[in-house]
């Protein structure tokens, strides 16, 4: 027992020296870091805007005053490019992390990612078809979104037929099978598409980026999807804890398991499908941010929800600022999330094995 007490612990539930609960400090720190990176992202880029002018600019915009040419250029950059992209990155990071955290709680497995039920590979097929058929961007987004949803509903349907919807194991197995099926379909579409530019477009889409879908209306669509997906998880966040000991124990504690499971699956699918449809496949975030958040505030979903949303958004903003400012050109974010995420994950593993395994 003395051995186990010497292990590192998460910081959850402890009251710190200045009288705030530890998780409150974590939320505060994450929010401050988030604001800092938002400011950095607003200011930096090909057209840098002095930070001192940003407040001024927003003030003038609200008052609808006539702007001189320099301000006009900054205005376009700020309101049509930078801010939507910042919100997009934040929302996608938050959405993927939240979906990952919810699935990890549902499947009682910290190794589960948001695309466990095939949403990403489904969306990939939809997007590839849209590119082959030369559809406009809006068509691509819709195709990716509905193919993503379709793949998950196929998984739910098949597992309902096979296992009468009872077993989580059947759900995961069918998810793996459907993912493989859509993965193969995606490869097939790439294989038969004859010209190189189509192929390049498909491969780049699959790597994920915020560059091509950060118009103000895209960010608004993402905000809507995020709200619809995240609010049910917020409202049921205390109940989700009871899943930690499995389906049967949750039921004996009074949880309507089937309903809660459906809420988690539909919410997570909506969060993931909208992210993938708008920005392509961005791996790792949905896996590592929940881990990091559990390390900071513990596994209680009631305290985890805010940490995952803030942490996921922050991580994605950091990645996007690296992509936009540090690296030349527009490298797909999917590459950078993995390059940054993998070492970070190993570091976290070393810090606190005991805490969540």
């Amino acid at each position, binding site marked *: 027992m003395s051995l186990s007490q010497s292990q590192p612990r998460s910081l959850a539930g402890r009251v710190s020296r200045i009288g705030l609960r530890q998780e409150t400090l974590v939320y505060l720190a994450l929010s401050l870091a988030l604001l800092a990176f938002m400011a950095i992202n607003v200011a930096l880029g090909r057209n840098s805007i002095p930070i001192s002018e940003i407040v001024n600019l927003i003030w003038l915009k609200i008052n609808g005053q006539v702007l001189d040419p320099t301000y006009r250029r900054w205005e376009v950059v700020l309101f049509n490019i930078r801010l939507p992209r910042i919100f997009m990155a934040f929302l996608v990071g938050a959405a993927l992390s939240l979906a990952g955290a919810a699935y990890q709680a549902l499947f*009682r497995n910290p190794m589960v990612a948001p695309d466990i039920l095939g949403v990403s590979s489904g969306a990939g097929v939809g997007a590839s078809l849209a590119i082959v058929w030369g559809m406009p961007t809006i068509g691509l987004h819709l195709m990716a979104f509905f193919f993503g949803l379709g793949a998950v509903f196929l998984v739910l349907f098949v597992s309902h037929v096979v296992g009468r919807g009872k077993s989580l194991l059947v759900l995961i197995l069918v998810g793996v099978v459907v993912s493989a099926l859509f993965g193969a379909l995606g490869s097939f579409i790439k294989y038969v598409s004859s010209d190189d530019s189509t192929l390049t477009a498909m491969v780049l889409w699959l790597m994920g980026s915020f560059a091509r879908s950060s118009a103000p209306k895209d960010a608004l669509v993402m905000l809507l999807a995020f709200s619809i997906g995240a609010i049910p998880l917020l409202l049921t966040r205390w*109940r989700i*804890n009871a899943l930690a*000991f499995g389906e*049967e124990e949750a039921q004996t504690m*009074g949880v309507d398991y089937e309903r809660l499971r459906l809420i988690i699956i539909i919410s997570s699918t909506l969060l993931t499908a909208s992210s993938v449809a708008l920005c392509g496949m961005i791996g790792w975030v949905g896996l590592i941010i929940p881990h990091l958040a559990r390390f900071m505030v513990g596994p209680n979903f*009631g305290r985890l929800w805010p940490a995952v949303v803030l942490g996921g958004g922050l991580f994605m903003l950091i990645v996007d600022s690296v992509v936009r400012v540090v690296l030349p050109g527009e490298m797909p974010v999917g590459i950078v999330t993995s390059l940054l995420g993998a070492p970070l994950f190993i570091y976290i593993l070393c810090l606190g094995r005991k805490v969540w395994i």
Partner: protein
Amino acid sequence: MDLTLENVTCGYGSRAILSDFCATIQAGQVFCLLGPNGIGKTTLFKSILGLLPFLAGRALCGGRDLSSIGRAARARIMGYVPQSQFTPFAFSVLDVVLMGRTAHMGFLGRPGRADFAASEAALARLGIENLRDRHFTELSGGEKQLALVARALCQEPTFLMMDEPTSNLDFGNQVKVLKIIRDLANQGLGVVMTTHFPDHVFQCGDQAALLTHANSQRVGPLAEVLTSENLTEAYGVPVSVLKWPDSRLDFTICRPNFA
């Protein structure tokens, strides 16, 4: 309040494992379920908890048919203390105990001050306040067992359903848990427990049900059910039930007869 099982048949799908079982379990008593492996103890247990539908018969609690009430209402009648204690996440013990309040929270509810107070009270009732901030995953088997008992007590049930509560514990912890079971029953809770040890039943039980291979069940007071003949028949090994005829130490033990 009574929990009455009327001619219940339990099993999976259409396959009945246990047929025509009758028993009445009273609050304030410890009801022990014994029988060899595979005889249907767990199946009966799951059926009473509502995890499996009864294939025939019904369970009544205070005159109400249990199949007609919802999960949350059932969770306020009976709390479950499971055998396995695995969770991949390092919840604090307080968080685990708080999960037991789910049945009192409403679908979108969140725990309030009363829920935290009930959790603290459950920990205090079992004398494990010191475990409050420990990680559940770091506890020993005995400590985990007590934390899960606290979780079930938090549901404020009339009946406590304990699946082999002593099976993974060392001798000292077995004694502690049996003592707690007895105390809880004395405080008015009805305890239903499965066990493989007749001695444990003698130490804390009031009523017993012995499921034998012949698909016949004996239900009643310990002295009638747990006799040498019945146990020998049920487990297929010769055993003797011995009474210690001493006015101060009134106890019964069961020991195998080695040839």
